[in-house]
């Protein structure tokens, strides 16, 4: 793949500052999406509602997936929330914040499903928690 604006856009990425991150099978793509969402949540200025609250809610959903607590319903919730934040945010930070979610779902949906259905992190990065214990600790599940 050539490194120019058009090719990167086609792959669902952006040029940004020209940085490149190399990953192998030892990287969990859900964890990567969570990492970038944490960045956007942290950097959100708080002026517009979709970015201010949406990035926090998306981060929470991603966190639940990486802990093995999320259901398929919550993944659907994440996808619809991501589309809404992309469409309605005021600036590029909010509009671009769901990009890692979209591109990891596009190319690595199986990794999301492994966390949700099989309670397994294929890359061996995420620590899976007991759903029963989470519910008992007051962290509702659906």
């Amino acid at each position, binding site marked *: 793949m050539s490194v120019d604006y058009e090719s990167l856009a086609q792959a669902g990425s952006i040029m940004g500052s020209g940085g490149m991150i190399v990953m192998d099978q030892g990287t969990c793509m859900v964890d990567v999406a969570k990492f970038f969402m944490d960045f956007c949540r942290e950097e*959100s*200025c*708080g002026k517009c509602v979709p970015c201010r609250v*949406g990035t926090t809610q998306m981060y929470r959903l991603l966190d639940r997936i990486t802990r093995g607590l999320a259901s398929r319903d919550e993944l659907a919730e994440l996808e619809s929330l991501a589309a809404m934040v992309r469409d*309605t945010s005021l600036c590029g930070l909010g509009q671009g914040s769901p990009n890692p979610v979209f591109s990891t779902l596009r190319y690595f949906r199986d990794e999301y499903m492994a966390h949700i259905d099989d309670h397994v992190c294929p890359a061996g990065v995420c620590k899976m928690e007991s759903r029963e214990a989470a519910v008992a600790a007051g962290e509702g599940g659906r």
Partner: protein
Amino acid sequence: MSVLTLTIEGRDVAGQTGGTILQVAGENGIHIPTLCHLQGLSDVGACRLCVVEIEGQRKLFPACVTAIDEGMKVTVNSERLAAHRRRIVELLFTERNHVCSVCVADLNCELQDLAVELGLTHFDLPLLSPQASVDATHERFGIDHNRCVLCTRCVRVCDEIEGAHTWDVMGRGTEARLITDMGIPWGASNTCTSCGKCVQVCPTGALFEKGRSVAEARRRRPYLPYLVAHEGRTR
């Protein structure tokens, strides 16, 4: 000033150059949901409830800060917009601690009205339930940050109309909070003139007059005629 013609919701309408979609829609009786907008104050496009679709454009545009253009075709209501707007109100409800039954603004609350208007019957997202404070140090008024939606109407009315600029916003993301002066208690502020404009423009029960119990707050915006006078001056 020349007149521009455009289509909103399939209706042919006309508006002055420089007018916004929200303004022209309103003049023609077409309703667009809003929250941070208040006639007479500058618009900030922060709540995103007024987003509309413009034919030929991939992005959505906030009607309150988007100027009309000749031949523009605007869609105000679509399934996608309705879902997005409902989600925005849901995000606001889950962000802080909105409990209508014990709120001074119950039945006089724009957030509550929006939930009803947009058909928000339940929350799919979890409540964030932050520990937000209450400042009751002012002699006549109070602020409950649990009910604040950060629309910044109070910031704008205090700066643009009263000229005091007592209110501002501190912090970022979900940590953002309204502050008086440089973050001192409201009662200790020496820029606040105690005019109460911030209380009257607040869409929720965040800013309230002391001594008003649940569901007694009545916003008296018609008693603020200078808001409309100010509107005329800036156009």
